[in-house]
């Protein structure tokens, strides 16, 4: 009932068609050529701005001080952080971030229910005051002497860290081929360091051989001057010549 009354009242005041056609009665129009040269902005403060001789010309957006044209790393003083992280390759393990933390921490937290997300999802029961244990309560911690059973020792294991391969045991002779076990171990660790060591070893061997050759030549020279010298070439000299 109420709504019908309201509708009938509104219909009385609101014309179904404007007496001036589609034109707004508020704006006086000097230009009758059909080109609109004004900008009408609505909102809290409606305004009509004459924008000149250009059709659809708008005011440019206000220039903000900070845009993507500026080096934002420099603007916020983060260049140091950028150079710190972009330059070197980061170690991916959590243990490299927390090197002093004992135990194995590189495994996913879901495996042993130690994830931080679970702390958020299921917050621990708190609010109780923490009090020192009484002597009666401490009696519960009286332990039997002796080592811990095998199944509880896993926590005690230190995290396995990748040691840099120190090939101190590379004492094989120049002609010898290193054993298979040794090569596999070095392959796991770092092939580059192994190669370097080999190169060093090679250089060392070459020097030895050169020294030997020099000694041999000296001997030969001595023999040449000695009366026993026959003057013939050795097989190795043949092959060289």
């Amino acid at each position, binding site marked *: 009932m109420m709504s019908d009354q309201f509708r009938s009242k509104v219909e009385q005041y609101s014309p179904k068609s404007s007496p001036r056609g589609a034109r707004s009665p508020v704006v006086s129009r000097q230009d009758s050529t059909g080109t609109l040269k004004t900008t009408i902005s609505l909102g809290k403060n409606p305004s009509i701005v004459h924008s000149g001789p250009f059709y659809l010309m708008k005011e440019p957006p206000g220039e903000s001080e900070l845009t993507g044209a500026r080096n934002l790393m420099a603007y916020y003083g983060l260049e140091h952080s*950028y150079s710190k992280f972009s330059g070197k390759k980061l170690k991916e393990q959590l243990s490299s971030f927390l090197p002093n933390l004992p135990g194995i*921490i590189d495994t996913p937290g879901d495996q042993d229910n130690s994830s931080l997300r679970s702390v958020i999802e299921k917050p621990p029961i708190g609010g109780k005051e*923490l009090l020192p244990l009484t002597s009666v309560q401490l009696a519960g911690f009286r332990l039997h002497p002796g080592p811990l059973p095998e199944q509880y020792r896993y926590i005690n294991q230190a995290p396995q860290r990748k040691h840099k391969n120190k090939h101190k045991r590379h004492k094989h002779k120049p002609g010898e081929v290193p054993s298979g076990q040794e090569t596999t171990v070095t392959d796991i660790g770092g092939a580059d360091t192994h190669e370097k060591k080999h190169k060093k070893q090679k250089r060392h061997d070459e020097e030895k051989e050169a020294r030997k050759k020099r000694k041999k030549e000296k001997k030969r020279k001595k023999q040449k001057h000695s009366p026993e010298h026959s003057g013939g070439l050795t097989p190795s000299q043949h092959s060289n010549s």
Partner: protein
Amino acid sequence: MTSRQNSEKLVNQMETFIENVRQINIMVCNFQPQAQHILNRKIQNIVTDLQVINNLKDSVKDMRIPVEVLKYVDAGQNPHLFTKDCIDKAMIKNQELKGKIDSYKKFKANMLLEINKYFPKEVEKYRAIRNDNNDD
């Protein structure tokens, strides 16, 4: 006390706690009867450390940590990887935006140049309206 100092204090306290637990672990692995007294003292130390940590929790309440960082930690990964990722993404976005802005500036300059060839009067008017005397 600043938030940085608060967090450092909390970290130090947690390290003390962890070290205490580690020592208990070593003692318990091969327990000697004469070590019972020391063990009891260390257990009391654990309670004291937890009390201190509990008291420090309010001092770091305003500290905000992205949830994504927790994902990295839970996966056993270095959380610095998250920082690196964020910095890389920000840098790429910054460069992209700079490229776009430069391109639009060049476009505007070229367009005005070309229009000026055919409509010099209009360009002059346009520049007068815009107070734009440059070519860019």
